[in-house]
C-alpha cells in the first residue's frame, strides 16, 4: 500500500478543526462545569461519583483532542498516559507511603517521561502507522502489569490508596477544576501559534518544515502537553476510586476516549467533554435495563456513529447556542486587527545598497550558496551527478533543463529534504549538507514546491502566517502571532492575495495557490529563495502579475534560484542560467550565451549522447 496515501486519508478523516474555539463555546463549557457542580452539591454519592468520572473522562477527551484533533495523528494509545500516571501514583501512595498530592505529581512526571519517550520514538511515523505504533505501548504495559502481578497487582490492580478527600463533593469539584484548567489551557493552546502550526503539520508536514518549522518539536511538545493533561486527571483516579487496575491502560480505554470525541465532535475541544458527560450519564441511566444495559449502550453508540458521523453533541449544542444567543453575535476579533501597529517593513526588503553595478549581476559580491560536487543516486539510477555551482548574494539564477534532468532533486538536496549521496552544500560558508530542512530554512534558505503545497484547512492568511513564525513553540500572549499577521497582510497585498485572505486554501484557483506558495516562503524572510517552477500551470493575467511580483523581489536584492520552463520568465528575471541535463551541468552563463550553446540545443532537441558534453 501507499503510505503517502494512507497519511492523506487519515488526515482528511481527522476532521480538520474548523477554527479556534469560539467564545460562545466557552460559555457552553462554563455551563458544563457549573451544572454538574450545582447538581453535585446535593451530595448524592452516586451522582457525585458519576459526575466525577465523567469529568475525568472529559479531561481525557480534551487532552486527546488537543493533539489528535489538531495534528491529525490519531493517538490510539492515549490512555497509557492517564493510566501510567494512575498506576505510578497508586504505587507511590499505597506501597511507598507518599502523600496523595506528592504521589499524583510523581504519576504525572512519570507519564510526562513516557510521553517524551514514546513521542520521540513514534512521532516521526505518520498516519495509520503512528496510530498503530502508539496503540501497542499501552497493550504492552498492560501485559507487564500481569507479568509482574505480584509487585504491581496484576489483573486486580492495587488497592488501599489514600483518598485525597473524605467528602465526595470535593472529589467532584477537584475533577471539575481539573477539567476547567485543561479546557482553558487547551483552548488557548490550540488557538495560539502552536495550534496553527499543528494544523499546518496535519495538512503538509514538509511544507511546514520548508518554512523553518521544527515540526518534530512542535509535535513532541504538543504530544507531551496532551499527555500531561490526561495524566493529571489519571493520577487523580486512584485517589478517589481508592484502587486502580489495568483497565485504565487498556486500548478499550483509549477507544472510549475516541468514542466520546467522535460522538461529541472532534477538533472542537468542547465536543469530547460533552461526549464524555453525555455517554457516561447515558450508561448510568441505562442501568434501569439491568442485563440489557451494555447492549443498549453499544446499540446507541453504533446508531449515533452511523447516523451522525460528524458528532452529535457539540454540533447540536452549537446550533442551540446559535439559535438562542441570536444571529448577530459580535464579530470575533479578526486575525491581526490588533491596534498595536508595529508595521514590519514591507517585504521584499528595500534593496540592498547596490555595491557593484546592478547590471553585471553579482560581480563583486560574496558567495552565499555553494553546491560542491553534489551527487544523488537512487539505487542504480544517478539523478544528479557531480554538480557544482555557486550563487552570489543578490544574484538571480535560473535553473533549467528537460524534465527529469534532476532539478527538483537538486533543490531537495540543497534544502535538506534529501541527503546527497556525495558532495556538500554550503550556505554562507557553513556546511549544511546534513542539516534538517527546518534548520536550513532558519538559516535563510527557503524553497517553494513545484506542485503548490498549501496547508489545507487553513485560510490564506493562516497559510502565510505559518510561513512567518519563529522557532519557539509557545507564544505567550500571542504576540508573535499578531506580528506575523501584520506581515502576512503586507505580503498578501504585495502578491495580490488580499481578496482571498479568509478563504480556505484548498478552494483557491491554481494561480492563486502558486502565489500563496511564494508568499509563504517570503514570510520566512529568506536570504536565498528557491522557487520550483512558480509559473507552471498559470498563464495570462496571473502570469503577468506573478512575473511582476517576482521581478520586484529580484530587484529588491534578494538572492533567488528559480527552476522554470517558461522562457520569458527566465529571460526577464535572470542574468544567469544553469542548464542541467541527465543530472549534470551542461551550461552556465547568461541567458543569451546558454541559448546559443550547441550542447543545450541538442539536449532540448533530444539528440542523443549530449549529456557528456559538460
Amino acid at each position, binding site marked *: *500500500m*501507499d*503510505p*503517502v*496515501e*494512507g*497519511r492523506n*486519508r*487519515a488526515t*482528511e*478523516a*481527522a*476532521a480538520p478543526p474548523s477554527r479556534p474555539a469560539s467564545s460562545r463555546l466557552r460559555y457552553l463549557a462554563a455551563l458544563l462545569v457549573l451544572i454538574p457542580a450545582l447538581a453535585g452539591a446535593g451530595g448524592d454519592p452516586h451522582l457525585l461519583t458519576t459526575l466525577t468520572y465523567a469529568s475525568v473522562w472529559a479531561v481525557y477527551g480534551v487532552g486527546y483532542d488537543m493533539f489528535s484533533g489538531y495534528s491529525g495523528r*490519531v493517538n490510539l494509545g492515549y490512555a497509557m498516559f492517564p493510566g501510567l500516571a494512575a498506576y505510578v501514583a497508586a504505587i507511590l501512595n499505597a506501597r511507598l507511603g507518599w502523600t496523595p498530592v506528592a504521589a499524583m505529581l510523581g504519576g504525572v512526571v512519570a507519564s510526562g517521561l513516557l510521553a517524551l519517550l514514546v513521542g520521540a*520514538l*513514534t512521532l*516521526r*511515523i*505518520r498516519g*495509520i*502507522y503512528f*496510530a*498503530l*505504533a502508539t*496503540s*501497542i*505501548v499501552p*497493550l*504492552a504495559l498492560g*501485559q*507487564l502489569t*500481569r*507479568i509482574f502481578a505480584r509487585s504491581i497487582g496484576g489483573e486486580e490492580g492495587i488497592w488501599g490508596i489514600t483518598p485525597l478527600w473524605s467528602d465526595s463533593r470535593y472529589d467532584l469539584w477537584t475533577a471539575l477544576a481539573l477539567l476547567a484548567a485543561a479546557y482553558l489551557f487547551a483552548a488557548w493552546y490550540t488557538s495560539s501559534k502552536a495550534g496553527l502550526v499543528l494544523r499546518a503539520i496535519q495538512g503538509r*508536514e*514538509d511544507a511546514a*518544515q520548508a518554512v523553518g518549522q521544527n515540526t518534530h518539536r512542535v509535535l513532541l511538545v504538543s504530544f507531551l502537553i496532551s499527555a500531561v493533561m490526561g495524566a493529571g486527571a489519571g493520577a487523580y483516579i486512584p485517589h478517589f476510586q481508592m484502587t486502580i487496575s489495568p483497565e485504565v491502560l487498556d486500548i478499550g480505554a483509549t*477507544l472510549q476516549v*475516541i*468514542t466520546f470525541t*467522535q460522538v461529541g465532535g*472532534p477538533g472542537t475541544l468542547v465536543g469530547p467533554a460533552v461526549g464524555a458527560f453525555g455517554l457516561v450519564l447515558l450508561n448510568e441511566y441505562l442501568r434501569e435495563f439491568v*442485563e*440489557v444495559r*451494555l*447492549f443498549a449502550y*453499544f*446499540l446507541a*453508540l*453504533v446508531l449515533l*456513529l*452511523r447516523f451522525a*458521523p*460528524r458528532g452529535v453533541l457539540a454540533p447540536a449544542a452549537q446550533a442551540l447556542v446559535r439559535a438562542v444567543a441570536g444571529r448577530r453575535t459580535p464579530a470575533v476579533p479578526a486575525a491581526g486587527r490588533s491596534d498595536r501597529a508595529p508595521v514590519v517593513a514591507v517585504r521584499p526588503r528595500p534593496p540592498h545598497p547596490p555595491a557593484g553595478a546592478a547590471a553585471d549581476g553579482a560581480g563583486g559580491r560574496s558567495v552565499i550558496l555553494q553546491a560542491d560536487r553534489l551527487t544523488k543516486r537512487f539505487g542504480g539510477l544517478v539523478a544528479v551527478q557531480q554538480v557544482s555551482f555557486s550563487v552570489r548574494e543578490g544574484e538571480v539564477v535560473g535553473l533549467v533543463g528537460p524534465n527529469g534532468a534532476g532539478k527538483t532533486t537538486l533543490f531537495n538536496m540543497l534544502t535538506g*529534504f*534529501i541527503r546527497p549521496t556525495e558532495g556538500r552544500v554550503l550556505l554562507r560558508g557553513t556546511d549544511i549538507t546534513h542539516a534538517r530542512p527546518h534548520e536550513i530554512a532558519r538559516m535563510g534558505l527557503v524553497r517553494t514546491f513545484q506542485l503548490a503545497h498549501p496547508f489545507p484547512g487553513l485560510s490564506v492568511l493562516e497559510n502565510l502566517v505559518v510561513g512567518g513564525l519563529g522557532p519557539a513553540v509557545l507564544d505567550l500572549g500571542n504576540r508573535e502571532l499578531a506580528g506575523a499577521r501584520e506581515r502576512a497582510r503586507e505580503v498578501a497585498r504585495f502578491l495580490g492575495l488580499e481578496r482571498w485572505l479568509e478563504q480556505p486554501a484548498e478552494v483557491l484557483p491554481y494561480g492563486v495557490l502558486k502565489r500563496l506558495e511564494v508568499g509563504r516562503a517570503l514570510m520566512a524572510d529568506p536570504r536565498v529563495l528557491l522557487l520550483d517552477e512558480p509559473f507552471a500551470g498559470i498563464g495570462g493575467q496571473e502570469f503577468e502579475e506573478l512575473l511582476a511580483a517576482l521581478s520586484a523581489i529580484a530587484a529588491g536584492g534578494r538572492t533567488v534560484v528559480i527552476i522554470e520552463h517558461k522562457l520569458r520568465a527566465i529571460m526577464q528575471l535572470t542574468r544567469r542560467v544553469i542548464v542541467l541535463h541527465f543530472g549534470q551541468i551542461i551550461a552556465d552563463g547568461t541567458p543569451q550565451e546558454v541559448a546559443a550553446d550547441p550542447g543545450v540545443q541538442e539536449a532540448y532537441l533530444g539528440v542523443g549522447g549530449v549529456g557528456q558534453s559538460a
Partner: protein
Amino acid sequence: MQALGTAAAVIVYGLGVSGIYALMAVGVALIYGVGRVINFAHGAFYTLGAYLTYLMATRLALPWPVAAAAAVLVVGLLGAAYDRYVLAPIREKEITVWILTFATAFLVREGLVLLLGARPYSIPSFVPGSTRLLGQSIANQRLLIVVASAVALGLLWVLLYRTRTGKALRAVAQTRYGAHLVGIPVERAHAAVMGISAGLAALAGVLISPIAVVTPDMGFEPLLLSFTVVIFGGIGSLRGSLVAALLMGYISTLVSFLVSPQYVTFSALATVFLVLLVRPTGLFGAAVEGA
C-alpha cells in the same frame, strides 16, 4: 527424547497457530488495504462463525462440517451487508468508521450474551482422534486447522491473482479513484472484500472452537494478535501478513513452550513495537516517505 518431543510439538503446533493467525490477519490486511478501515469488528466475525456453526448444527440438525461451511458463508454475507449498509455511508469519516467497528464488536458480544447467555458452548472435533507425528500425539483437529487454512489461503490467492474479480479488487486497493475511473464498481469491491475477510475470520473461529470453547468473548484475543501480525507484516500487504503470521505463530509457540504461555502476548507486542521503530511500515510495507 523429551527435548525432541518438545521440538516436534513446537513445529506442529506452531503451524496450526500460524494458520489461524494467517486466516485472521489476511482479512484485516485486505480490509485495510482496500477500504483503509481498521476493523475492530473482525473478531466479532470470528465469534459469529463459531456461534452460527453451533446453532445450525444443534437447532437445524445439520452435520457439523456442513454447519461449519454454512456458517462461514453466512458470516461472509453478513460482512458484506455490514459494509454495504453500515460502513459505506460514512466511509469518508475514517476515524468514525474505526470507532464504529469497535462499538460493533461489543454490540455483537452483548447481543450474544442476551440471546444465548454468557455460558460457553462446545463444538465437537470435526475429525475426532489424534495422530502420532514425530513422536508426538497431535489431535486431528489441529491437523485440520493447518490443512484448512492452507486451502483457504490458497483459494484466496487464486481469487486475487488469477481472476478478473481479484484484479479489480487489487486495483481498488491501489487507487480507489483510478479504479472508479476504469469502471470498477468500487463500493461493490469494498463489500466483497469485507465479505471475504469476514468469511475467513469465521473459518478461523470455526476451526478453533472444537479445541477451545465458544464464548461471546472468544474473538477479542485473536483480534489483538491478528493486528500485531498485520502491523508486523506491513499493514495492507497480503504477502507481509502471511510471512508475519508464520513468524509470529512460531514466536508465540516457542515462547509458550520454552518460556511460559504468559509471555506470549507481551513478546508479540514487543516484537512488533521494535519492528515498527526500525521499519514503521512493517516487514513488507512500502518505505515511509522521507523526513
